[in-house]
């Protein structure tokens, strides 16, 4: 597949994630949108990884492992995302325990 398609697809997902962060008030949904952004990145990385692999193959290197690093990076992103989710949800739950809401608009004690 032409790499541009993947780029545009990923960018679209990424920006949808950003729009979600911008338009929602629910902290959990916002967090989910961020996860969406990360997944967009993952997709892009995998696509690039395959693209570089392809390029290496076309260059005549039949045993190339070019592109492995991209997929491994995705793996690390997933690792980090998992860790982040555990911490993030813990924080959100803690917040919910205290104010019984996950509405970020109520996060306004700290300002100016």
């Amino acid at each position, binding site marked *: 597949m032409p790499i541009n398609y993947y780029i545009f697809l990923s960018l679209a997902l990424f920006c949808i994630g950003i729009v979600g962060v911008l338009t929602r008030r629910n902290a959990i949904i916002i967090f989910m949108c961020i996860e969406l952004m990360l997944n967009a990145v993952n997709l892009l990385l995998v696509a690039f990884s395959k693209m570089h692999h392809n390029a290496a193959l076309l260059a005549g290197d039949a045993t190339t492992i070019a592109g492995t690093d991209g997929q491994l990076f995705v793996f690390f992103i997933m690792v980090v995302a998992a860790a982040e989710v555990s911490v993030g949800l813990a924080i959100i739950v803690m917040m919910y325990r205290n*104010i019984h809401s996950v509405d970020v608009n109520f996060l306004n004690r700290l300002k100016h």
Partner: protein
Amino acid sequence: MNALILSAILGVILMFSGILFKQKAAIRNIAITGMVLLLAVNVMEMCGIVFFNVNTHGMIVFDRFALLFTTIAFASTLLYLLLSARDMEKVGVNYAEYFTLIFFILCGITLTASFKSLLILFLGIEIISIPLYILTGSDKRNLKSNEASLKYFLLGAFSTGLMLMGIALIYGAMGTFDTTSINIFTEGKPSLLLVTGMLLLLFSMSFKVSAAPFHFWTPDVYDGAPTVFTSFMATIVKAAVFIGFIRLFDEAFGLLRPEWKLFVALIVVATLFIGNITAVFQQSVKRMLAYSSIAQAGFMMMAVYAMNTDAKEGLLLYAVAYSFATIGIFAVLIKMKDYTFDGFNGFAKHQPLLAATTTIFLLSLAGIPLTAGFLSKFYMLKAAMVAGNNLWLVIFAVLMAAVSVYYYFRVIQAMYFKEGDAQPIEVSRSFKLTLVVLAVLIIVFGIYPDLILSHLYF
């Protein structure tokens, strides 16, 4: 490598020490001893004694710059622990865990200072960030702490997303995560993917160092977090991210400088402006310090802008000057009950020594000569000036430095020249001694910075 492994081990040790020891003093002593040890092994590595020989496949390189910075960071952390470790008790019950997280953060700091691969940078930043989210929210019953933690987390994760997108685009353009390989492009014009990725990295790194317009989390988070942790994250962590920042933009995007120069300059200007101007009207010293940290970031950002030898040296010096001074001020601030400026009224009368040292810290932050703060700012200005045709930037920076005097001196004025019922605070003798040492160090480095910088070269 010594420090990286030891800090991880120390983190685990402290994790268990919370179970093994019930006395907080014991935990604290372990932490401080561990910190001394960490510093020692790092210094040893600087002298060429490496305990662990791990093949990192070129992803991590402990060069002198990295080692010197980690030494500085560890030394700062040691001083920080000496001054403020006792105050962590007040935050919550998980005393040992706080130290654990701090050691893990140090691990991340080591990575951020010595990465050669974007993967390591990413991991390093995350290892710094995630414990920080937790530390920010560690005062669980305090709504401000909760709020700060959640804000920090959401915004931090968002910026992580940006960073990853940037890394992905760069990977697309260059097919590698290795920083030096990124810096090689043969054609006249760099790839658009590369430039876009670079800009996204610029945004996310700016976010992490709280440079405008990505600074918004900073005041709220610094304000909301338990003061003892604000001190840590506003100083050592920020400096570390800056080191990562300058490494990244030097090694990976050095050749792209024409593309990012303008934006970094704009960010410098915006950061200086917003940080300084907004700090002027603050009522709480803590929040003022939060804005001041933004302002200081603006100055440090000039190192990224200039990107020359002076800039790197200056950034190291800045890290020392800024960290030491801010740690000192926070250490005093933690002891206060009233964080407003008025809370400092008449402070000098009751605590002359504390007031005097705080004054030195404030003078250093304001960049008054004879303190390390001056020379560090001076290095920044010099670096920017040497970097070329940008007198306007330097003049602007200097004018903003003058503005900064306004709010730093408000504290001095409150301490010395205003009558007030200063809060009776009790400090130990060793606390005072450490503060004095800190103040003396600031002055010594302010007179003779080569004590630090000469270690950069042999």
